[in-house]
């Protein structure tokens, strides 16, 4: 208490605590439980990296690696045989692969929401989950990238999507095409997310480096940590760089899914050609991503024993974001129907009636149930506090959001303007295996990440602990002054 008084007395150094900054009488539970010291944070977060993985990790890893192997086998087969191995036809020319692509890109968005948007909004609860959420973004973007690449049919020519000087005359890509926009948006998103993640990791890599004994691992971490030594001159610049990257990533994440929605909205297909698509896709992406963060965090909390860091309060806040985005997505579904009904355009009206009552009605109602009906249970505090219930809801939301993309793509295509060209669609086993493989890739990478890098942003968590301690001390100080 004495030293805090001294610190507060140094004019202009520590801003004086004003009454509105004080915690409200209904003091919330601390963000990090167990009254940790900084050394405990380091020890506990680094513990999974030091010990051998347990049976649960090995079990999960083997399942994920097996799924990845299935995917690799399916992709190798279709590489050699061609994309005729898919269930596409003249009417439905885009289906499973683009569904998976949009699904995975969406999953990635919650990572950037947590790391960048919530950072700008000064939400301190993000620190326990941002590292894993950013890793999730990177892995999800990798999974997403696989699908357009194999969709090209000749993935070894994938670089043709970028402009480069070539020997075929003055031949350039068409910058007016949303597919070229996609290539730029996704590669920029991946590069900036990876940079943001690495910059965030740097102080923690140094912490790991300084506690390792001499050896190959220490050498590796010495290279990776770039010589970080906690110098405040570096911290001072680091904080600005982090803020700038967050500021850049925020419009970037919105632009990426907006551009993905333009892949559809710039066409003239009824059901796709809608001005609501950009905000609808961005909200849906954050909705599905938040559900995936919840799935992963509940698993990581259990497998890595991080109960004190990922607390019920974190789950509670994320659940509230799920309810919010579920509401936005539900409103978008209604708006689409209203716009179709109000448009007076029979093709537009038919597409929406066909979505709900046609041959893919089951997919539409699965989507509505999982995305709009099920998340409503999160209004109840009791459900938000039950990790098992939240886990089930998060899984159902992921199923629902996958079906949302499927419904948008397949139901809009399978019955177009001419009844003579109407068709159906069902995925082949190769397409299903590719989807399974993408989940395998995602979970394999995530499980490896959990073992080799600190899952919790240690430096940021220490900052949060110090902040909470200062607030509590300032509160006591103010109460003491008042009594006097």
């Amino acid at each position, binding site marked *: 208490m004495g030293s805090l008084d001294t610190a507060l007395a140094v004019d*202009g150094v520590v801003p004086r605590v004003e009454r509105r900054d004080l915690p409200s009488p209904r003091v919330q539970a601390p963000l990090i439980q167990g009254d940790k010291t*900084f050394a405990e944070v380091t020890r506990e977060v680094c513990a999974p990296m030091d010990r051998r993985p347990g049976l649960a990790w090995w079990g999960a890893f083997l399942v994920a690696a097996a799924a990845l192997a299935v995917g690799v086998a399916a992709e190798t087969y279709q590489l050699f045989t061609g994309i005729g191995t898919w269930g596409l036809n003249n009417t439905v020319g885009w289906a499973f692969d683009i569904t998976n692509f949009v699904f995975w890109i969406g999953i990635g968005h919650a990572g950037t929401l947590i790391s960048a948007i919530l950072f700008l909004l000064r939400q301190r609860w993000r620190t326990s989950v941002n590292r894993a959420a950013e890793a999730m973004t990177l892995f999800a973007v990798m999974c997403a990238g696989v699908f357009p690449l194999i969709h090209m049919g000749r993935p070894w020519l994938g670089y043709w999507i970028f402009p480069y000087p070539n020997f075929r005359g003055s031949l350039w890509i068409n910058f007016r095409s949303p597919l070229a926009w996609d290539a730029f948006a996704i590669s*920029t998103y991946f590069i900036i997310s990876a940079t943001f993640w690495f910059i965030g990791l740097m*102080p923690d890599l140094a912490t790991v480096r300084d506690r390792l004994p001499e050896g190959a691992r220490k050498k590796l971490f010495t290279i990776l940590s770039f*010589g970080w030594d906690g110098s*405040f001159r570096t911290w001072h*610049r680091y904080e600005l*760089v982090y803020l*700038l*990257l967050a500021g850049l990533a925020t419009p970037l994440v919105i632009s990426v899914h907006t551009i993905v929605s333009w892949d559809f909205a710039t066409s003239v297909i009824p059901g796709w050609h809608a001005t609501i698509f950009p905000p609808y896709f961005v909200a849906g992406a954050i909705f599905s991503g938040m559900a995936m963060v919840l799935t992963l965090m509940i698993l990581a909390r259990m497998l890595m024993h991080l109960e004190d860091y990922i607390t019920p309060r974190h789950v509670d806040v994320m659940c509230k974001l799920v309810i919010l985005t579920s509401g936005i997505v539900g409103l978008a579904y209604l708006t689409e129907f209203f716009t179709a009904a109000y448009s007076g355009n029979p093709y537009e009206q038919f597409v929406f009636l066909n979505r709900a009552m046609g041959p893919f009605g089951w997919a539409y109602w699965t989507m509505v149930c999982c995305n709009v009906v099920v998340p409503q249970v999160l209004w109840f505090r009791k459900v938000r506090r039950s990790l098992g219930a939240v886990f089930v809801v998060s899984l159902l939301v992921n199923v629902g959001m996958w079906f949302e993309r499927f419904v948008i793509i397949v139901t809009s295509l399978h019955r177009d303007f001419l009844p003579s060209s109407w068709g159906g669609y069902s995925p082949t086993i190769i397409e299903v295996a590719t989807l399974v493989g993408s989940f395998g890739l995602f979970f394999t990478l995530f499980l490896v990440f959990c073992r080799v890098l600190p899952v919790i942003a240690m430096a940021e968590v220490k900052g949060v602990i110090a902040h909470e301690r200062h607030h509590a001390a300032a509160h006591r100080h103010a109460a003491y002054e008042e009594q006097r």
Partner: protein
Amino acid sequence: MSARQVVGLFSRDEDVVAATAAARRAGLSVVDVFTPYPVHGLDKAMGLPPSRLAWVCLIAGLSGAVLKLWFELWTAMVDWPLNVGGKPHNSLPAFVPITFEVMVLFAGLATVGAFLAVSGLRPGRKPHAPHPRVTDDSFALVVRDEGGAMTGDRIRALFVEHHALDVQERIDPGEPRR
């Protein structure tokens, strides 16, 4: 002539902030402070000027946008004019998405590159921390004892007054102060 450095080790951020401010008031030159997380108020206590990296971000972002827009216009209007669905060659609105993405890419990478360059961070660089625990749970204040303002003993007393756990004197290793 090698000057001497005095290193004080602290366990709480408020102590290191107060000690830094006191050291500067006493006329000492603060070489650096080492902390496990960014401590708020320490930049003011150390008297650090605001970083200019935001300018790098702005200039790089604008350059990226201008370069990309020029490239799109040059390819579509000059080098390979092609009639795509009757759209004009300079279809500016269609060029906005990629211009925006390239702007963000240039701004982000240039800012990070400039940050690494001015902070001297690079793969495999040897860390200069005075104590291994500054990346874990301790705070270290390093001041230069030039023999003018204060002697080593008085600096030690000042540090102890601010609850320093340990105070050490060492020869200035002459590291570049970035």
